[in-house]
């Protein structure tokens, strides 16, 4: 009782479902990152994973405030000279809509082996369906 409680890595996986329709991008991503990391649990341990898997549907309908839809740019470099590529939020959403939420959540997860493992525990789908019905996920209702 006098020593700090150290849990064992639990083997049970928990599945959650979040509907991203008309949610603000950053505010949704912080909640996802908090649940993934396990910071909402009393048995939080920084080097263990929470074993929670989060399914995000309707990633196509994520929303941004202000003028960011046409002004927020996603930048990457191919490594070759002159290889700077810029894309606005609208263009990226038309091309690969899942990448927007993935990029946002990835930036909020810890960087390292554990963070990379946590990133594999989110499953983003742009439409309304997901193939994980067998896992019977709990629905998380926001606001």
């Amino acid at each position, binding site marked *: 009782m006098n020593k*700090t*409680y150290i849990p064992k890595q639990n083997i049970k996986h928990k599945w959650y479902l979040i509907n991203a329709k008309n949610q603000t991008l950053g505010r949704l991503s912080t909640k996802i990152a908090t649940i993934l990391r396990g*910071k909402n649990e*009393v*048995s*939080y341990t*920084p080097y263990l994973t929470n074993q929670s898997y989060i399914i995000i549907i309707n990633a196509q309908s994520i929303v941004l405030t202000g003028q960011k839809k046409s002004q927020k740019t996603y930048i990457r470099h191919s490594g070759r000279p002159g290889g700077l590529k810029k894309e606005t939020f609208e263009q990226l959403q038309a091309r690969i809509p899942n990448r927007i939420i993935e990029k946002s959540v990835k930036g909020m997860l810890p960087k390292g082996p554990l963070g990379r493992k946590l990133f594999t525990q989110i499953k983003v789908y742009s439409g309304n369906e997901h193939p994980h019905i067998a896992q019977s996920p709990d629905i998380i209702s926001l606001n």
Partner: protein
Amino acid sequence: MTRVKRGNIARKRRKKILKLAKGFRGTHSSLFRTAKQQVLKAMRYSYVGRKNKKRDYRKLWITRINAAVRIYGITYSQLMRRLKQSQVGLNRKMLAQLAVVDNDAFQAILEATI
């Protein structure tokens, strides 16, 4: 001057260091000169680690208390304010332990401080 042999003093000095290098990889646990470098490094790290350990555990307790309290709709900072005002002297380690092990007691503390 009479001839003086050093005897086994050097061996005792080296064995002292090699004993601290048990479990190190490769020649770091068997050869004296490499082992000494690694032992010095290890002692430096453990000195710093002893001071970091106290900070790390307090961080962990605070995170756990925060998680436990948010279920009831308040934040960690608000909880600390209430505890100070009600003059509850429990430290964060005990609060975190109660939240994990004995949730009923933790709930009772919360209710007593409102």
